[in-house]
């Protein structure tokens, strides 16, 4: 094989790999991120069920959950090519939004929330977590790439 053929092969491989890299605009699967989302879903839904009771009794638990949610958001934000999942976390935990963040904020402001509202919000928040979990579980396992 002459130098010219070798150069052609090298260029072809470089081109295909470049194509692969440029199209990998979404992060690979992370078992940590997946587990984190599953755990936080269970913990959030569980804590929400107490929102019919006075907020001050659960202030510490809410603060702890908020910290864990912030950690999950920061973890998502720190992963390369992970903008879509990060945006999902942002919507979920936004205190001025109308999912988990907004729910916890309202609980704090109003002390107690009605049973029906809590139950309906648990369904919405559960579905919201499922969108994060569903996307993460659909991501390509790093072992499939190489």
């Amino acid at each position, binding site marked *: 094989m002459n130098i010219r053929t070798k150069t052609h092969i090298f260029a072809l*491989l470089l081109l295909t790999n470049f194509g*692969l890299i440029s199209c990998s*605009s979404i992060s690979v699967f992370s078992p940590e991120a997946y587990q984190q989302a599953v755990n936080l879903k269970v913990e959030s839904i569980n804590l929400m069920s107490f929102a019919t009771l006075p907020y001050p009794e659960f202030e510490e638990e809410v603060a702890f959950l908020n910290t864990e949610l912030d950690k999950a958001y920061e973890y998502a934000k720190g992963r390369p090519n992970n903008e879509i999942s990060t945006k999902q976390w942002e919507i979920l935990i936004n205190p001025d939004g109308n999912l988990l963040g*907004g729910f916890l904020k309202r609980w704090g402001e109003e002390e107690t929330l009605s049973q*029906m*509202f809590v139950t309906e919000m648990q369904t919405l928040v559960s579905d919201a977590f499922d*969108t994060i979990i569903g996307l993460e579980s659909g991501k390509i396992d790093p072992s499939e790439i190489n």
Partner: protein
Amino acid sequence: MPNFNDFITTLKDDLLVFAKENFEEYKDELIKDGTLFVEKTKSDLERWTEGLASGALSKKDFEFLLKGKKDLAEMEALKQLGLSKIRITKIFNSLTNVITGSAIKTFL
């Protein structure tokens, strides 16, 4: 006593007026999207309007739930966008393997 169907009729009428008054240019799209949202959330809306009528939900609760549904729709849309990107990446991965295999088979 008004029922859920009365509510849907009123909502569609209100949507039409709102679209005409505020977004004449995008009126058709807005009505289409609004109607689709109503259809998709019909069972939730039915429960929530019952809750509103019975007093189990306040006006603020009702609005919060509706906005929550919109936030959820955004998260679902992001998931679908992500899954589409994953499908494209998988296709390119397979394509890379085929091209590399063909190159090696042909030249080496």
